[in-house]
């Protein structure tokens, strides 16, 4: 069993899965890949990739401070891996953020367009600057391999101490400002997490997490390369972590006690359970474990303790980033598998880069024997062709790339939708309007509807002859089809043509060439239109005739139908300006999602300013053209 090779294969597989999601996300948009909504715009990607990612990278500034400022010489060997982890962590954070941002290509805006009042602005600048500092701090290590860059390296080594200072300062600033970010949402966040001193809590927990992340990473990489675990140094870190965690616990519980929220911790609600679990895992159990010298000095105890802190603190960041707000927003957000795949892929990429660096550069005082160049490895043969796959290095490369593309293909296959479409469209069947002379149009039966005076519209539009202006078509064998019979879905288009039924024995049983011309391609665009056979379905001189077999959504159909006339009338005759207002039809409570751009216009009648939808005669005419009336 080759631990390194197997681990790398798994990491490449996860990366392949994430790459498939990444391609879909950037080509078809966020809606396809995430379960995020307007009520829950921050999900796993922010909670885990960004919030927890930044905190996990805290090891960089903690270890440089330990070594360069507090002169703890015994931790020298841990500094390089810690800086590398921090550097890769920040790159991963930026990668995760780019996937999450709706318009990622605008990320440079914060460099030019300053908004110094925003905590996000501070976070953005700090991440940007600190990533640069980390790159400069780490670059002497790879530069060591190339003698021609010796001069650059020596310059970097000279400015190392100022770089370390700047790095610690920037980390302190933005580890805490990630907490400040949430100060603006006291109404949204649960009281157990919300606190005026969140920035302090974030900073202290980042220090503890940094220490434990360095320990965990040391334990894991030693296990992976079959080296003797560095128990003595890790025990030292664990001892320091006890104090930091204790400070964190006092700050956290003290704040809750002062705010008088002590009782909320044990009231048995979902949040209180989350909070207690989080505190037990991240702080209390590790403090107890590490206080016992025997456990602190054993590799097993160190594994458990550091894992608990890391896991618990990630849990804390995810609670703050979203879980603590669910009861306020009432929005049940469960991340889609694609969101999780991207998060895992980002971590995998960072881990692969870490392993690459450890194998190629002088990160540890004794470089690990390259696991893929072991002279004793047996030759590997390709299963199908029985060909030797080459040296272990080449064979590994062959395997990793195969794992990557197979995972990519599998992930790509399970992307939602036949034609990849936004999951944001909810499939709500439309219902028939109720009433007689006055209709209540309420397609989704949520009792926010519109009273439609049918009789008055018949009168004002020119009695019976005007019917076809709205009732453009019937469904087969029917006379007075309701709008909802074809426009069957509230927000999605419906295919009203039953292709297979037309060819089926139990249906119309007609041959392909009845509709498709023999010399033409069998395409929708070249096939016969419905009206070529079903002329009886169309009202004489109907305004709309079906060309595409697709009925627009119920909401679109209703608005197109009404607004085309209303806007034209309102724009032509200023006494009828109110016809264009939303509230003219939607007299009840207005749902929040109705967003029409409103403008202030000087009314020629009253001489006062009135608020009107932004509709001019020109746009109204254009819409009239589109409707074809």
């Amino acid at each position, binding site marked *: 069993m080759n631990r390194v090779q197997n681990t790398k294969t798994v990491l490449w597989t996860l990366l392949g899965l994430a790459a*498939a999601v990444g391609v879909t996300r950037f*080509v078809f948009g966020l809606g396809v890949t995430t379960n995020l909504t307007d009520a829950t715009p921050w999900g796993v990607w922010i909670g885990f990739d960004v919030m927890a990612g930044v905190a996990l990278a805290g090891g960089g500034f903690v270890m440089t401070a330990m070594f360069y400022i507090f002169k703890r010489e015994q931790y020298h060997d841990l500094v390089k891996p810690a800086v590398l982890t921090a550097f890769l962590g920040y790159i991963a954070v930026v990668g995760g953020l780019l996937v999450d941002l709706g318009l990622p290509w605008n990320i440079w805006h914060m460099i030019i367009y300053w908004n110094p009042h925003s905590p996000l602005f501070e976070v953005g600048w700090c991440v940007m600057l600190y990533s640069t500092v980390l790159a400069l701090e780490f670059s002497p290590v790879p530069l060591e391999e190339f003698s021609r860059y010796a001069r650059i390296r020596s310059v970097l080594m000279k400015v190392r101490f100022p770089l370390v200072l700047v790095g610690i300062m920037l980390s302190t600033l933005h580890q805490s400002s990630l907490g400040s970010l949430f100060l603006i949402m006291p109404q949204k966040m649960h009281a157990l997490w919300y606190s005026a001193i969140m920035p302090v809590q974030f900073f202290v927990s980042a220090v503890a997490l940094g220490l434990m992340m360095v320990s965990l990473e040391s334990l894991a990489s030693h296990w992976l390369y079959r080296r003797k675990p560095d128990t003595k140094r890790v025990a030292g870190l664990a001892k320091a972590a006890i104090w930091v965690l204790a400070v964190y616990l006092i700050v956290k519980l003290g704040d809750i006690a002062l705010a008088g929220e002590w009782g909320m911790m044990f009231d048995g609600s979902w949040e209180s359970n989350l909070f207690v679990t989080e505190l037990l895992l991240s702080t209390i159990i590790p403090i107890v474990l590490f206080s016992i010298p025997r456990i602190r000095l054993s590799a097993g105890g160190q594994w458990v303790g550091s894992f608990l802190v890391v896991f618990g603190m990630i849990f804390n960041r995810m609670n703050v980033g979203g879980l603590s707000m669910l009861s306020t927003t009432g929005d049940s957000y469960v991340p889609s598998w694609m969101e999780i795949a991207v998060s895992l892929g980002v971590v995998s990429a960072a881990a692969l880069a870490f392993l690459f660096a450890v194998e190629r550069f002088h990160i540890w005082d004794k470089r690990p024997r390259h696991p893929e160049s072991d002279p004793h490895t047996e030759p590997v043969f390709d299963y*199908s062709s029985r060909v030797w796959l*080459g040296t272990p290095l*080449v064979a590994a*490369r*062959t395997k990793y*790339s*195969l794992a*990557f*593309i*197979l995972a*990519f*293909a*599998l992930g*790509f*296959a*399970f*992307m939602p939708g*036949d*034609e*990849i479409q936004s999951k944001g469209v909810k499939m709500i069947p439309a219902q028939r309007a109720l009433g007689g002379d006055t209709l209540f149009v309420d397609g989704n039966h949520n009792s926010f509807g519109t009273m439609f005076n049918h009789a008055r519209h018949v009168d004002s539009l020119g009695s019976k002859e005007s019917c076809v202006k709205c009732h453009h078509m019937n469904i087969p064998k029917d006379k007075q089809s309701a709008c909802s019979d074809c426009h069957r879905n509230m927000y999605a288009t419906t295919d009203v043509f039953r292709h*297979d039924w037309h*060819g*089926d024995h139990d249906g119309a049983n007609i*041959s*392909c*060439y009845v509709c498709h011309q*023999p*010399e*033409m*391609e*069998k*395409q929708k*665009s070249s096939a016969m239109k419905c009206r070529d056979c079903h002329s009886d379905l169309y009202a004489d001189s109907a305004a709309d005739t079906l060309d595409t077999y697709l009925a627009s959504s119920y909401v679109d159909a209703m608005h197109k139908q009404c607004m085309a006339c209303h806007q034209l009338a309102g724009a032509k005759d200023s006494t009828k300006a109110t016809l264009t207002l939303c509230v003219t039809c939607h007299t009840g409570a207005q749902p929040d999602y109705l967003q029409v751009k409103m403008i202030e216009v000087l009314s020629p009648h009253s001489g006062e300013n009135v608020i009107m939808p932004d509709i001019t005669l020109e746009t109204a005419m254009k819409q009239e053209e589109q409707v074809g009336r």
Partner: protein
Amino acid sequence: MDAFLDFARGPLFRVSLAVMLLGLLRILALDIFGAVEAYRKAGDKTLPWRFIVRRTLMWLVPVNRVFTRRPAYSLFSILFHVGLLLVPIFLYAHVELWRGVIGFGWWTLPKEWADWLTISTIVFALALFVGRVGSVASRFISRKQDYLWPLVLVIPFVSGYICANLNVGPATYQISMLVHILSAEVIFILLPFTKLAHCILTPLSQVISNVAWKFPAGTDDDVCTTLNKKGAPV
């Protein structure tokens, strides 16, 4: 049947497309990596670049060598490849499918051309198969997949022709369509892992064989001497 068709058109198609494109890129990258590594290890690093480029271009233009040896076979092979590449990429119906998914399409073949090219591909594939079976020299150097490929490649062309042209009932249409899609997908998936990969590896063949001759140093001359072809270009 509709569910099968939807599954074949949706997830299965995406799997096969991804495996094909990434798989081809993968073997291209692996081969280039291997060549670079071999070149680095070679004692003699001089490569006849002009010769390699000239020979590669010569191989890429098929008509150059057609009539030197086995003219009929070469001609059939070229005509077979013309239809094999043009019809799947430039058929109107296929371009329409792309337009529906990725939002843009490209130049398409007129339907009559597409039909004739389909028929020619089928005929020449069978001719190639017969040529391989009929010649002792060919049989001697043939593997199983060499016999199989002309026959497998014909399946999507035959089923596609049925769907596009014959006045068949809906049930037959759907079965042919399913066969058409599934066989094309099998070909897509196998493409990077079989000899069909030559579609992307051909430009590398010259440089790789030249690099391969290079190590250890002097191998090329030694081999030529052994083969009684001293001084011949390699």
